[in-house]
């Protein structure tokens, strides 16, 4: 007889792993007794049925209006269409990256200006930040789209989209920077000043390196949010992903299909970016802890 001393492979079954989703609030409840377990079982059955019915209803609504026919969907298996959408996605990413690359440093400068002790700097910066955070991006885009031609200034479509996005988002990013600086313990600044550093030296060597690390997660998620702002290219007829879907849908009479496909692409792009950001963040924060 052989006795295996190996520990069994720790692998939780799928049901357990699914069951643990969103269970962080379990402390609110007592451990369910037999009666409660029965009720939970009944609720599980009923809610499964209700959810299935909801899905079935949606599918039926698509089907009876002929929107599930293969003709309407097979478009998205054709290479030229896929290439067209890929170009749209690329334009979306381009808008996101360029506006992020401009808005981040601008936001940092604005935050520094607002934090400075000179009223000549901090008053205008505060005004800019507060006002720009309270204006809809669409209004700003319309103002650029319709206002600029009257001044005789002509700028490419790409920049008509980028400039308003950068203007609003730099204000939002500036507030994220500033709140990180504010969140830093006062003792850090005091210590730096006490060892004889000047204001800017303190900022550069003590405050900012820590503040940027603290603000990193919020900054990253704000930059990912730029992906959403890029859809306003739809308004200025810039061929990013959403406007590409509109053109495609109207041209081929596959309106709902095009928007659904593009929505799925946006969800995937967004979740991918968030996952990548999470990875980078973990590495970044990990290093910060070690030093």
């Amino acid at each position, binding site marked *: 007889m052989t006795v295996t001393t190996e520990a069994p492979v720790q692998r939780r079954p799928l049901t357990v792993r*699914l*069951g643990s*989703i*969103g*269970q*962080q*609030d*379990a*402390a*609110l*409840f*007592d451990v*369910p007794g037999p009666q409660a377990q029965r009720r*939970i079982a009944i*609720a*599980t059955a009923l*809610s*499964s049925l209700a*959810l299935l019915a909801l899905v079935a209803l949606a599918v039926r*609504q*698509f089907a*009876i*209006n002929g*929107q599930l026919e293969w003709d309407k969907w097979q478009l998205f298996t054709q290479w030229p269409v896929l290439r067209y959408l890929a170009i749209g996605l690329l334009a979306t990413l381009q808008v996101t990256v360029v506006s992020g690359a401009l808005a981040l440093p601008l936001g940092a400068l604005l935050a520094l200006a607002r934090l400075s002790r000179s009223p000549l700097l901090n008053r205008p910066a505060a005004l800019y930040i*507060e*006002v720009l*955070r*309270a*204006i*809809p*991006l*669409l*209004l700003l885009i*319309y*103002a650029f789209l*319709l*206002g600029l031609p*009257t001044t005789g200034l002509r700028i490419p479509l790409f920049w008509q989209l980028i400039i308003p996005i950068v203007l609003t988002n730099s204000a939002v990013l500036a507030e994220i920077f500033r709140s990180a600086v504010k969140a830093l313990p006062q003792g850090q600044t005091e210590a730096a000043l006490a060892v004889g550093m000047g204001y800017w030296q303190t900022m550069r060597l003590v405050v900012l390196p820590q503040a940027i690390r603290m603000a990193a997660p919020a900054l990253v998620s704000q930059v990912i949010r730029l*992906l*959403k702002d*890029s*859809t*306003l290219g*739809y*308004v200025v007829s810039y061929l990013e992903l*959403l406007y590409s*879907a*509109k053109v495609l*849908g109207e041209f081929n009479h596959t*309106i*709902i299909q095009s*928007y*659904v496909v*593009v*929505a799925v692409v*946006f*969800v995937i792009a*967004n*979740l991918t970016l*968030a996952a990548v950001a999470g990875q980078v963040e973990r590495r970044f924060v990990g290093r910060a802890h070690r030093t």
Partner: protein
Amino acid sequence: MDVVVDNLGVFGRGLLVSIQISAATFVLAGLLGVLLTVCRISPVLPLRLAATGYVELVRSLPLLVLLTLFVFGLPEIGLIGPLLWTAVAAMSLYWATFFSETLRAGVRGVPLGQIEAARAIGCTFGQVLTQVVLPQAVRTSIQPLASLLIAVILNSSLAAAVGVTQELTGQTQLLDQRYAQPLVTFGAAAACYVALAFVIGRSAGILDRRLAVQR
């Protein structure tokens, strides 16, 4: 400046429609947000999975994509409603996910020990929720909810992009086409939005201070 003075009524009506859209959206998103939150923390697995999936999915969609899908897509599957309410529906479904996140953060903010203490002295689940958790969760949620309301108002302008031109941004665009004085018209509209955000921010601050718990 005359453009603004002559068209005060237009701005007023636009502002009113914007406020109506935002208010309807905020209330509907609140109701759905509460429902989503309840589902997400419930011990019933399918509800929890569906609600969590919904929040993750919809939160990563751009609002404008959801709006175009609803306004131009729904008629394709035979669901035709008034334009304004279609837009409100799309926005409510979108903001409900953020509402749910805010509420959950508020509930999470209540220290675990308080909940355990309440259960230890024999409070039922309902009592724990209404006597201990919610009074504190609501207080800490005031500022985040005010920020959410401001975001809802600012983004209600997106309705103009899908054809609901009665609201403030849409009206401003129409006025601009008529008078071609962009600086004045867009400036006035911006002032309206800034004033709204200012009032909400200030009220939330006052409310927050009034209701703050001294700990």
